[in-house]
């Protein structure tokens, strides 16, 4: 089938401002939007820049705005979007070229929540124990692939990029509610700052945007509730 792709292009070496270009490509209905973008880069316009790697929704490279919504181009099939496809870079992060955005601020926000397991107790040669129920408590937020679809769908983030954003909170949640972690209170303190969870206005854009189906807004609410508990105790 023939598909019309409308792509927002911007090359700072050549362009003063972004502009739209249209391409007509022939794809199968079951092809991914990513396949259509490849058709353009490989056979029509080699200068089209977009990131991609795994092509099946686990590496998080190809988040972009497709027909108005944040999606991974490799998880969205052509027959689900129709024959007119509009593609733009993620909003809220600086555009470096075409569909490639600057991820530095995003990863800095990720690092700001101390995203690693803190545990000072020496476990010796044996594994730490964790019950299936304790493990289930934070299962949902372990699925994050850091694609930035959630953070760049958030209207609060668009208006105020000091907000740590949904992805960073998801990654904080993953440790705050891990029974093995000892830095939950410290992370809750970080997220209690003005740049933290209280900026969230529960628009649910992040939950809609997540390609991994993480209940992002619910995770943010979990964190808010934990902050309100005495002593910032995540494991009451």
């Amino acid at each position, binding site marked *: 089938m023939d598909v019309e792709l409308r792509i927002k292009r911007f*090359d*700072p*070496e*050549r362009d003063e401002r972004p502009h739209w270009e249209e391409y007509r490509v022939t794809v199968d209905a*079951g092809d991914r939007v990513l396949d259509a973008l490849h058709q353009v*880069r*490989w*056979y029509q*316009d*080699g*200068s*089209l*820049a*977009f*990131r*991609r*790697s*795994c*092509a*099946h*929704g*686990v*590496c*998080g*490279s190809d988040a972009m705005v497709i027909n108005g919504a944040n999606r991974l181009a490799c*998880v969205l*099939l052509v027959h689900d979007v129709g024959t007119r496809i509009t593609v733009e870079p993620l909003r809220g992060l600086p555009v*470096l*070229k075409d569909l*490639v955005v600057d*991820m530095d601020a995003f*990863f800095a926000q990720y*690092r700001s929540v101390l*995203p*690693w*397991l803190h*545990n000072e107790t020496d*476990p010796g*040669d*044996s*594994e*730490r*124990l*964790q*019950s*299936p129920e*304790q*493990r289930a408590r*934070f*299962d949902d937020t*372990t*699925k*994050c*692939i*850091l694609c930035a679809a959630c953070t760049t769908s958030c209207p609060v983030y668009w208006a105020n990029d000091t907000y740590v954003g949904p992805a960073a909170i998801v990654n904080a949640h993953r*440790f705050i509610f*891990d029974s*093995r*972690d000892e830095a939950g209170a410290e992370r809750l303190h970080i997220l209690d700052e003005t740049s933290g969870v209280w900026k969230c206005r529960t628009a649910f854009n992040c939950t809609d945007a997540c390609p991994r*189906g993480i209940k992002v807004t619910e995770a943010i609410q979990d964190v808010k509730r934990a902050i309100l508990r005495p002593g910032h105790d995540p494991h009451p």
Partner: protein
Amino acid sequence: MEIHRHSFDAVIVGAGGAGLRAAIETAGKCRTAVISKLYPTRSHTGAAQGGMCAALANVEEDSWEWHTFDTVKGGDYLVDQPAAEIMCREAVDAVRELEHFGLPFNRTPEGKIDQRRFGGHTRNHGEAPVKRACYAADRTGHMILQTLYQQCVARGVAFFDEFQVLDVAFVDGDPRRGVAGVVAHELSTGDLHVFECAAALFATGGFGRIFKVSSNAHTLTGDGPGLLWRRGVPLEDMEFFQFHPTGINKLGILLSEAARGEGGILRNEAGERFMERYAPTVKDLAPRDMVSRAMLTEIRQGRGAGPDKDYLYLDLTHLPAAQIDEKLPDIAEFVRTYQGIEPKTDLIPIQPTAHYAMGGIPTNVDAEVVLDAAGTVAPGLYAAGECACVSVHGANRLGTNSLLDIVVFGRRGGAAMAAYVQGRQPPSMPAGFETAIASTITGLLGSTGTESVAAIRSELQAEMTLNASVFRTDESLRSVSATIDGLRERYRSVAVTDQGRRFNYELSETLELGYLLDVAETLVVAALARTESRGGHFRDDHPLRDDANWMRHSLAFRRPDGGVRLDYKPVVGGPYVPMERKY
């Protein structure tokens, strides 16, 4: 183009599981740069699904010695047995360490790391399948990648993200004299960066993109093996490539062997559980090389499904829905997304997919690169993970052993490299070393050629899948070889239409295609020479294993004219005497 200069004690090329595990080991011991053409969390370790085997014996009686036996037998006795023993013995600590790093493994009711079955892993030397694979649902690789990245963030590791390494410098141009540095292309600017270093560890992953139907990411193009080969490092056992039985039909996206570990069954068009005929004891959980051959035999004999009778089925319909939701959520979602069917009620069309390179950059058990059959070490040069060949996988890797390989040999390589650079100054790079790559790039950007990168690549992939995959013959391999010769000729006049510097992915893909052509050629030449069938290398015209002549590893060297010269080295034996592989 601007040239930037950096000086480090050690450089790690690639930020998947092996590279990140090595970086954890060097952190705090020496100044290390981790250079990756992707953001680390985009690496293909994250696509691994089913698990990581270690004889924890949390669920069933087990021992690392049984694991070693399975690994050697699974590799069709081409495995270097002392290396396999190290891997399987250290697996137990490696899994516990990942748990201490925070990896969220699935748990038993007692709170221990849970374990499940996987192909080729057995109790007591083949008696029955054993529960040995530690896992986190069907996203174990994702959890390993995230956990190792988290630990690198905690240690303040210096990352150079979206830098593509294109060349390596040795003292006096001789790998025997020591590493001098690497040259990388910064994707965001088009600038070149020269990293002077006393040691470099390559962890660039696989090169499944030489095939059309592959589980591998677009970015798995053999850059590390390719660029080292051009500088005089041989490649070992390149003829051994694994085809995973359960790729999504036509797309090649992986559906984990854990699907069969959880009870999934392979069926032909008539609904028959055909693996009962090929592996009566372990059936659907036979090693991957055997299952893929059985599948294509079914198709050849007319028992395939679909209008062209060219695929088979994975059947999960008898599994409890909750088991699929809890243990196999991601692959169930892949089936829904890409095939539009429901795995709880529908049979899943599958075909073998190019998955894993058993061969690669030859190393010893400390991940030091070895340069010849005599075991001469390249001082300061290391490799780990799929790009390397230790060899722990021999002629066919067992499921889960790749995740084990990256953490065990990533750790060993990082430790060896940190020790090597102590008290050593980085040797100065040969003056103007980067001009070779600079002129290659300038030449491509100014090219007046007319050949299309995409066309050459897709012809290479189609020909490799048709003639150099599960079944091979002298004739089919000669056909690929002739095709590659023609494609190489066309590659000389390849066109790069984008003249820009920033994020010039057309340029990156052109450079990657050069590596794909190189590694494909070494595979084909080594496969043509090996007139026997062993593990993942099956020759219709030489269908039997030939231990008298072929219990040896191939080494493919680059000839001065660009062709391939083969040499061989013996397999390092051990307690397990080669016998016929039955399951």
